[in-house]
């Protein structure tokens, strides 16, 4: 399995090269890979049907308990066949659809990357590995929706799809990590083996909700459904592949996969049936507003996805059987319908079903494919879609409300089938924006083959019953389940309901031209519900972001410094008060002499002058006085070397500062801001000083550990040959500090030198080219 996936990813990487070489016909060659993968999955069929899943494990990130674990059981096999099989036809189809597009090489890169990732999703037996592939499908979907990237609409829609699915993905990741910590393993087969541990865990509802969020967003369930119709901005092969047959079913897959582990509880039942039901309802109604063939199909896809979620939620064997068959049937008819819609768009120039008619003569083969698929989509015999729909009705017999909703949905699905597969083709008068002609063979093979499969499996359901449908249902149920599929069920209630559905649908379709314009005029421009919430949420968030940034990111240096000091005081002071940080403080001015207070008073006075004065010279001189006062304190406490240093530094600072400041324009010193600001600054400054004073007193209140001092005294002369201990500390004991400080001085000097030179690049053409807009705007 790992090798198959690596091959698929490898093929993605060489696909652009192949396409560049072969041009138009590349699609046929490239399709060999998915075709090969299809055969590979087919070859797994017998053993899987016999109840022996393919298992493979390779160590990946053992520290996190994540491994490359794969497991192909019935469910994985069904999905794998759909992904690889439909992928084969999509690869061929895309070669025709995008012939001549210079981005075709990139397209194949993305398409095959998606295919590989999707196969990874359905074969992973490790939650984290599954998530890795899951997000890869989101990314490739993003790039594919935005394939026509120079259109703004495409870009916006791609982004919407990404945000919705990636947002759900984040919740899902949290859910997976939670599941992993609940069960002690990320291996899915182990989770499935011990459902009781999960279901009875207090965190079960949270984990379920998080995982379900991921599944619902991916499978376009209400209220996250809106991204899917917008994803129709992608080229038709993408819509038929990612956004109907495969990727959007990943959510359904996940729910089905985890059903044995998380299902069977009231929470599971209500969550899935309510969301699935709401999805069916919302999408059914919204379908009525559509005229674009791809959007019609997109909404009908949402209806189908909702139905599947609903059936998984019900969870009875009958419901699961219906889900599996319906899923299979849906993939087989929806993909060709999308391809046919794409062909019509490509060859006749429109997707608006009201602007198309009579194409059947010029596009007979496309019509044939669309027609067959349409019959299946409408749930009519002898197609597989009929069996799927009948089973769904049977599966919901116990829940009349859900059943009623499904019947309405069935009618609308029939309407969609008529609009897409009948209306554009039927009739004698040809209406189309450009002269229609039949699609090339590459664009016919896929739709015809898939539609034919739908017919074949409808006529002879036994072909897939034992090898595919039963093992898939068994995987979802967690136990073997034997059932038989028939096209003809006999005169059952389900058949009656089918008849009801058909008559409703036909009535809707027959009168469509009358009621649809009225409906569109009334509700067409209304943007309410989830999409409005989504868009409004983003707008609000961005407005808030701008506001908070203006507030936080002030341009004023003084604010910066005030915030830093205030934060320090609040944090340190707060902790000091709360945790008794100042308990060791000794307040003992005893033994102080009068002249010591004198120095103190001088320093205080000079500080006050600094703050009050508006004259620069006075400020500088007063600062000098503060410095000298401190130096005298050093003298008092027997540190003459420090005092001398301080005197020197202060003298130099005063002289240099005076020289510099005198040359500055006089406005530079005017106090800015009002009285309030000055008071605030003062308060913050005083609080900062008080805090440090308090801490100093607290620290000096502790006994001092003089081990270092004693060592320096004892070793300075005998071991380091220096009588001046301070010097020895500087050049020997702590010479590294000195080295670095010397470099600091040298760098500072170099920096000053650089600053003093003229500004860059006046008249230098090269520099001008490099600095067109430069920095801060």
């Amino acid at each position, binding site marked *: 399995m790992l090798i198959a996936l690596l091959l698929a990813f490898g093929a993605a990487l060489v696909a652009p090269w192949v396409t560049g070489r072969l041009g138009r016909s590349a699609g046929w060659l490239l399709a060999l890979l998915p075709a090969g993968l299809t055969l590979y999955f087919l070859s797994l069929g017998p053993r899987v049907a016999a109840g022996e899943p393919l298992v493979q494990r390779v160590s990946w990130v053992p520290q996190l308990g994540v491994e490359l674990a794969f497991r192909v059981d019935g469910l994985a096999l069904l999905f794998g066949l759909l992904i690889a099989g439909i992928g084969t036809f999509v690869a061929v189809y895309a070669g025709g659809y995008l012939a001549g597009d210079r981005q075709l090489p990139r397209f194949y890169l993305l398409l095959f990357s998606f295919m590989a990732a999707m196969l990874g999703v359905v074969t992973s037996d490790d939650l984290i590995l599954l998530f890795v592939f899951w997000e890869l499908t989101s990314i490739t979907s993003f790039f594919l929706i935005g394939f026509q990237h120079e259109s703004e609409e495409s870009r916006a829609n791609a982004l919407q799809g990404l945000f919705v699915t990636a947002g759900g993905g984040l919740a899902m990741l949290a859910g997976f990590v939670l599941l992993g910590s609940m069960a002690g393993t990320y291996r899915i087969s182990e989770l499935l083996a011990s459902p009781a541990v999960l279901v009875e865990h207090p965190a079960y509802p949270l984990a379920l909700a998080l995982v379900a969020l991921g599944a619902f967003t991916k499978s376009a369930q209400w209220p996250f459904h809106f991204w899917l119709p917008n994803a129709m901005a992608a080229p038709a092969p993408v819509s038929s592949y990612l956004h109907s047959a495969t990727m959007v079913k990943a959510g359904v897959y996940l729910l089905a996969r985890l059903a044995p582990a998380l299902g069977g509880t009231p929470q599971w039942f209500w969550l899935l049936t309510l969301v699935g039901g709401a999805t069916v309802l919302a999408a059914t109604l919204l379908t009525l507003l559509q005229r674009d063939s791809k959007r019609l199909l997109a909404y009908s896809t949402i209806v189908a996805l909702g139905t599947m979620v609903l059936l998984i939620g019900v969870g009875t064997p009958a419901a699961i059987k219906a889900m599996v068959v319906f899923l299979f049937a849906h993939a087989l008819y929806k993909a060709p319908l999308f391809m046919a819609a794409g062909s019509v768009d490509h060859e006749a120039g429109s997707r608006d079903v009201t602007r198309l008619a009579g194409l059947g003569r010029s596009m007979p083969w496309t019509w044939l494919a669309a027609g067959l698929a349409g019959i299946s989509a409408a749930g009519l015999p002898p197609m597989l879609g009929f069996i799927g729909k009948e089973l769904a009705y049977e599966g919901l017999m116990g829940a009349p409300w859900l059943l009623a909703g499904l019947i309405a949905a069935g009618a609308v699905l029939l309407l969609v089938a008529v609009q897409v597969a009948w209306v554009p083709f039927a009739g004698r008068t040809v209406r189309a924006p450009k002269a229609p002609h039949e699609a090339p063979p590459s664009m016919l093979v896929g739709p015809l083959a898939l539609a034919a499969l739908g017919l074949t499996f409808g006529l002879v359901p036994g072909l897939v019953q034992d090898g595919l449908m039963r093992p898939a249902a068994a995987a979802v149920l967690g136990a073997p389940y034997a059932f038989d599929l028939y096209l003809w069920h006999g005169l059952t209630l389900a058949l009656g309901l089918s008849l009801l559905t058909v008559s409703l649908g036909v009535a809707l379709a027959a009168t469509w031209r009358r009621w649809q314009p009225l409906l569109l005029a009334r509700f067409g421009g209304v943007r309410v519900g989830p999409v409005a919430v989504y868009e409004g949420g983003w707008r609000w968030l961005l407005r808030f972001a701008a506001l908070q940034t203006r507030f*936080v990111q002030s341009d004023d240096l003084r604010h910066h410094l005030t915030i*830093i*000091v205030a934060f320090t005081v609040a944090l340190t002071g707060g902790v000091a008060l709360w945790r008794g940080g*100042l308990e060791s403080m000794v307040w003992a001015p005893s033994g102080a002499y009068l002249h010591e207070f004198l120095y103190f008073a001088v320093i205080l006075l000079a500080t006050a002058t600094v703050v009050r004065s508006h004259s620069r010279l006075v400020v500088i001189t007063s600062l000098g006085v503060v410095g000298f006062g401190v130096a005298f304190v050093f003298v008092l406490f027997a540190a003459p070397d420090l005092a001398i240093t301080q005197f020197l530094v202060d003298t130099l600072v005063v002289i240099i500062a005076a020289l510099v400041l005198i040359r500055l324009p006089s406005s530079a010193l005017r106090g800015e801001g009002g009285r309030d600001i000055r008071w605030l600054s003062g308060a913050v400054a005083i609080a900062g000083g008080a805090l440090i004073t308090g801490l100093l007193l607290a620290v000096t209140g502790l006994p*001092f550990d003089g081990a270092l001092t004693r060592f320096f005294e004892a070793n300075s002369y005998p071991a380091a040959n220096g009588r001046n201990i301070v010097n020895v500390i500087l050049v020997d004991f702590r010479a590294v500090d000195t080295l670095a400080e010397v470099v600091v001085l040298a760098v500072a000097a170099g920096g000053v030198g650089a600053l003093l030179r003229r500004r860059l*690049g006046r008249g230098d053409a090269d520099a001008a080219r490099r600095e067109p807009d430069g920095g*801060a705007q």
Partner: protein
Amino acid sequence: MSALLVAPVVWPLATAAILVLLQGRLPIQRTLSTASAAVQLALAAVLLARVATQGILVVQFGGWDAPFGISFVADHLSAVMVLVNGIMGTAVAVYALRDLDADRERLGYHPMFHVLLAGVNGAFLTGDLFNLYVWFELLLIASFVLLTLGNRREQLEGGIKYVAANLVASMLLLTGIGLLYGATGTLNMADLALKLPLVPDGLATTLAMIFLVAFGIKAAIFPLFFWLPASYHTPPVAISALFGGMLTKVGVYALLRGFTLLFVADVALTHGLLAWIAGITMVVGVLGAAAQTEFRKILSFHIVSQIGYMVMGLAFFTPLGLGGAVFYMVHNIFAKANLFLIAGIARWYAGSFELKKLGGLYRHRPLLAVLFVIAAFSLAGFPPLSGFWAKLVVIRAGFEVQAWPLVAVSLSVGLLTLYSMTKIWLAAFWSPAPAGVELRAGPAPALLYAPVVALALLTLAMGFASAPFFALAERIGAELTDPTGYVRAVLGEAAAAAFVAQGGAR
């Protein structure tokens, strides 16, 4: 062995000295500067290999035993950070060959660059708190000169804010060190780990707050980050990339070291506080980025946001959290610096950093587009790129300590990160080039691309083959959680025994 431990500092300093002597001879300077950075990278790799096989390495300068002299200590964390600095140094040195203008080179770019590398390595390796302050000074002054090199107006405006905030940080750090020395009588960090428990818990925790602020300014946490977005976008890209990648991480390193080795008297308080700070930093940073429309400014705000994830790992204070923080940091350095470098190449083509003046790069420059996608989606935490594992591991650490709100916040912030990255993607890559903007013909110089490709490969390697990286992160997490080995390496067996007896081993 001792030479190996000192080399990451001495080598670049010696290089800087020689480069000063060669001032004005640009071709020789360029060659020497690049070659020296590469040698430094090789030395760092050897150092890490040595640490991995022999355990924590220590040098006592001048032969004065700890705690009397100054010690350099290389545990796994330090060695990894030195290696990362070597990688970044080499990448930026190569990139600068094409990105930097001759004027700035003449003004002394090359020696300053190596002094900066030396300062960063010194900060990673020192085992002495005051010595750490000295290296901070060195890297501050060197970075300030690099930041303002060229004297453009906005550079000076940004530079003033940068240097003012960072000088206050230095001052606070010095004050804190002085107070700590008064309380314990020592500066050696291992010795401090031994003696801090003798200080009353309340006072020790209070002093820890001063260090939290001082290191926090360097790391650009909330509410101390504003100097970063005000300045990081002003110098040339090569310099921004080095700053954006490495410099704030020195602050994070200091937080990691300080709040595992030293300030653990009241973990519930200090690390609880860190958790709050982490959450707010993430949110404020990412929202700040959402409001920007200039390539480098978006990146600058994201630096802030992602510092929050690293602090989050620290706040959990478990082996997984700490190892995760380091993994996150290393991933982030590569991805973030790479995005700055990519911004520079985008500017080479389109002539601007303003998103509304960029466009058309996806159609015309697919290689650049791929490189951007790798770095940007990694930053946004998409699997299987490095950022995903980084996010996964800190989230898992959060689940372990049941920090639900912080986990929820960090996940939501991921979506907003994605928003910013896709904003750049849409504007610069997908949109057609706006009217009046002509993309420069011909591919950008290979020397601009080479480091970007190399860093992207690292991001891929950390994503696809993350096991060896996690093995390292696991060891780092273990070493940080239980610093007994650190104390033993620096002070010897008796001190380690005393440390364990005090209950220092966790």
